[in-house]
């Protein structure tokens, strides 16, 4: 994963609440077995029908509960592949938020009013290290889990970190913690 650094530039706006991942990347494009090439299908139906115009910019400002519905990580891949490096919204759906952090797409939660001001300002600078968003209207701070921030800043591989805990996992299994549940290979 590429480390997340300062993200600076223009914003594109999707000013709607509860945008679900079916809109972000419709199901007919989930059949690919690669992680790349989804950008051209981003918001496919809305862009094709002309009800949404989306400039390629580093920052996407969206409405509350962005990324609801299906767990498809393809939604994050499509947003990144289109060129976005950060998404700012008043609230995100849980799975989508996690998917962002696993791919180095920076999710930033700010108040609804602030999101509107950012959209109007058009230019934004996000500094993950000091957790600030700077725009013509001022500087605002955003919250992000310390551990998530650390991994994003350094572009760390989650699996690699967990495997450093190999001994703890092994001990958990040896101590009977993994004895619950079925043996699927014996069915």
């Amino acid at each position: 994963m590429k480390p997340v650094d300062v993200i600076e530039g223009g914003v594109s706006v999707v000013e709607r609440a509860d945008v679900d991942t079916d809109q972000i990347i419709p199901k007919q494009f989930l059949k690919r077995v690669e992680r790349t090439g989804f950008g051209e299908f981003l918001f496919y139906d809305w862009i094709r029908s002309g009800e949404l115009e989306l400039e390629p910019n580093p920052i996407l400002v969206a409405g509350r509960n962005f990324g609801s519905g299906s767990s498809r990580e393809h939604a994050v891949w499509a947003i990144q592949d289109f060129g976005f490096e950060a998404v700012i919204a008043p609230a995100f759906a849980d799975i989508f938020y996690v998917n962002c952090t696993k791919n180095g797409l920076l999710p930033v939660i700010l108040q609804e009013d602030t999101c509107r001001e950012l959209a109007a300002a058009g230019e934004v600078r996000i500094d993950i290290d000091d957790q600030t968003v700077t725009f013509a209207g001022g500087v605002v701070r955003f919250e992000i889990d310390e551990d998530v921030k650390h991994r994003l800043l350094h572009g760390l591989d989650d699996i690699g970190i967990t495997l450093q805990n190999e001994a703890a996992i092994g001990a958990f299994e040896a101590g009977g913690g993994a004895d619950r549940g079925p043996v699927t290979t014996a069915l």
Partner: protein
Amino acid sequence: MPKTMFDKIWDAHEVAEGLIYVDLHLVHEVTSPQAFDGLRVERRTVRRPDKTVATADHNVPTDGTRAARMIADELSRIQVETLERNCAEFEIPIYSLGSERQGIVHVIGPELGITQPGLTIVCGDSHTSTHGAFGALAFGIGTSEVEHVLATQCLVQRRPRTMRIDYSGELGVGVTAKDLILATIGRLGVSGMVGHAVEYAGETIRGLSMENRMTICNMTIEGGGRAGMIAPDDTTFQWVAGRPGAPEDFEAAVAAWRELPTDEGAEFDTEVEVDGAAISPMVTWGTNPGMVAQVTDAVPDPAGWGEGPADRDAAVRALAYMALDPGTPMTDIPLDRVFIGSCTNSRIQDLREAASIVDGRRVADSVRAMVVPGSQQVKAEAEEEGLDDVFRSAGFEWRTAGCSMCLGMNPDILDEGERCASTSNRNFEGRQGRGGRTHLVSPRMAAAAAIEGRFVDIRTWA
């Protein structure tokens, strides 16, 4: 200190702070290929294939296609064949097309008896919350997390907040679990449960079958919830008993499971109370599951809907997409299609209830109706009981198992502008086919709607 059921399961699975051990990992063809690729790139293995199981469901045609290589759509065929190859390479058991155990991943887990109380269960699919009906902690994950679980059998997780929704009273005649969860989401909104593990509790819930409980937990994600759960009881234990995956020492397992329910006095971050007896049959009118009304109501006026301009705008857009006018009685909405199926409502009880409605009647001439059993086993059981004949004689198509028209990744889709009464879980724009219009309802309501060609109040319909 008294603990919630969620706390008990979480605490028993914490390998290290924020690192949760996974007891059962379910895999399907759409969200896994990139994860397996990731393993290969890093030369990693699957840590516990014996805690992993796969099936093909999203892409499969429901026309009786017997093998992956026979799938006509090239991309779908590649995806299912890729899953089969990946499972062979990493030694993961798989029930693909042609297997008598194939079916929707959230139907076959409980059916095989591998969904059990007290487990942590994950799958690259948001409807994994279904399995919480057994008193398990079950939730959907993304593809990066699928790869993480394959490699480590663990998941990095922030502890969610807890919510309890307490239902009192008995559901009315003709009112089902589907109506209960739609009414709940209608009240709390599609982000009302975000960040929470939700426990559905109370006398209404205790009186429900496992199929009903699964329908409720299944749609937790439509309220934004991380996981939905219901305390295990004798109804749960009877379901698991005798199934292929049931624990060998069943009595010992049951004794442990009886310790799982939330302790008296345990505290939740959020508590909600719902009068179960007051719930009516529900029908969605908009483009998310929170846009829902009682069947006796009319399509709402966006001006008075929701809490503020964002909701109002969404309602205006939704009505435009759905081609509905405010004030139209829900029972005046004419239908083109009826779909009975999906991980929400495709189990044997769902099919029995729908069959009891259509028995001896005919689907309206204007309607094309289909029934898609959730698994090959549900299909076999239904055929044993003669339900397929009931549906076919009424004019329904009787299909083979898969996700089918819930999400239109296979040949079962709506045409542009078609209006469908569907027992599935999402009425998003284009979900069942580009330009298709979806109304979510219970199996009984869908069955009656197929007969009449419009929605009816199942309580007074004869």
